[in-house]
């Protein structure tokens, strides 16, 4: 499989404190990958460098064979990356439909927008709420709206930062089948704390600890990896 996203020696320090150090990361097209690690392992910093909201202090990022290290976030999105925020970031005072339409209008025009909006909201189960104001939704529904905004972009790579945080169990089940249906057209990078979701969904898992890659492998390999167990999973 060809690699869609890769990093080479990617690093970032914040005034001497090294948050991410020399990470070589490779994500083949079509894969569902999970990125896990204890709090403070550097996951968010790493992902911020992928999407372009933080500039790396070393190394480079490639997307689809192109060096995107110095491109601003909006250019990366135009190439086909989409990102859903860990802390929900939606347009709180606009309707759900308008939220999703803003995501869809990047590549669609006219009537096609409304159709895409309907389809994306349908997939996350929010179609009945299309005309409501996003700020009035429950937290869990706002998370789903974020995902719908990601879907409406029809990205090649969808980066989901803690997508199941705040979702009810039933919603998590729906979320898992939704993500499975996206692959293999869409490559997924999932940053997730919920180990049930990770073990169920991910084809491969990358573990970050102290800003470096601690281990990488299939869910069962990671599950039985002694170093990972010590660092993260506890003795399970």
């Amino acid at each position, binding site marked *: 499989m060809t690699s869609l996203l890769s990093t080479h020696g990617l690093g970032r320090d914040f005034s001497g404190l090294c948050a991410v150090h020399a990470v070589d990361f490779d994500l083949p097209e079509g894969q569902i990958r999970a990125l896990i690690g204890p709090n403070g392992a550097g996951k968010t910093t790493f992902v911020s460098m992928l*999407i372009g*909201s933080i500039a790396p202090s070393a190394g480079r990022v490639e997307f689809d064979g192109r060096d995107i290290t110095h491109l*601003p*976030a*909006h*250019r990366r*999105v*135009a190439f086909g990356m989409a*990102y859903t*925020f860990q802390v929900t*970031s*939606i*347009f*709180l*005072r*606009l309707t759900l439909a*308008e939220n999703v*339409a*803003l*995501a869809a*209008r*990047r590549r669609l*025009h006219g009537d096609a927008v409304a159709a895409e909006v309907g389809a994306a909201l349908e997939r996350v189960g929010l179609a009945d709420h299309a005309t409501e104001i996003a700020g009035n939704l429950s937290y869990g529904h706002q998370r789903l709206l974020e995902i719908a*905004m990601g879907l409406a*972009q029809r990205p090649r790579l969808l980066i989901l930062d803690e997508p199941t945080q705040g979702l009810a169990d039933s919603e998590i089940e729906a979320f898992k089948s939704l993500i499975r249906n996206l692959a293999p057209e869409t490559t997924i990078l999932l940053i997730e704390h919920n180990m049930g979701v990770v073990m169920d969904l991910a084809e491969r898992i990358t573990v970050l600890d102290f800003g470096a890659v601690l281990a990488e492998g299939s869910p069962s390999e990671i599950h039985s990896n002694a170093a990972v167990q010590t660092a993260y999973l506890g003795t399970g």
Partner: protein
Amino acid sequence: MSEQVKVVTLHGGLIALLLAMNFILPAYHHGNLARIMVLTSYAIGYNILFGYTGLLSLGHALFFAAGLYGMGLSILHFGFSPAPALAAGIAAGVLVSLVAGMLALRTAGVAFMIVTLMFAQAGHLTILLFGTYTRGDEGFVIQPAQRVLAGIDLSDPVNRYLAALVLFSTCLLATLWLVRRPAGRVLVAIRENEQRTRLLGYDAFRYKLAAVVISGTISAAAGATYGLLFGYAGATFATVQYSIFPLLWVLLGGAGTVIGPFLGTLFMFYLIDLTSGITTAYMLIAGVVLVLLTLFAPQGMAGELRRRLWGWLP
């Protein structure tokens, strides 16, 4: 009625009403309304940046003055006729807002307010510095003979009123068109959540720059028309007071509404007009009314209308 029909009825109705007023109003109010329509156009320009894009500028007098002086100086020194003079004023607005925007948009929030304020101060001082050409504070009069546009004497009250109405309608309809287009929706998205907008793939800087230029150009068109219709250009129009006015008008009328700037300008104009007839401390009364409105209608008049009655108001 569908939303589309309501929107067209309301805004078309306002324009028709203002046209009818031309034949009804007594001379004094007729003159006032002509002035209000030109100033409203200035406020409409301001509203695109402040109300829709969420960027608070304290230096819009720079753009108003760019239009006023671009028009006035080209008549005074180059003997331009009104049509090319008007074009010169608008071109000056495009140029000044493009340069000011590219520099000021490197900042955000309070810094943006301060930088725009400083630009406008620099503009005001430049006008005074080149007093030999601009006549500084004293300003200069544009003679009625120099204000005949395509055979129409703009110093005549009826012509003046109708010219003001043309400018106002153009600005109003252009805003209405813009904010309902996808590009206009992106401006609102930037106002609501700029980071999210960028991560949806929109080049926020380009959109904001476009908003500054559109806003500045409309303001300049209002400035140029003001000078042409009322026959005077002076440095007072470049002072900080004229940067604050459109902010007040828009806040009172309803930021981020198409009709708000008109309501705000009309209200404020007559508030000062009426209270100054009662007392010399008219700004005191105006101040109290402003405080009350901010307390009880924080979203402005049209904003309250939208919240309470007309959810469809663009």
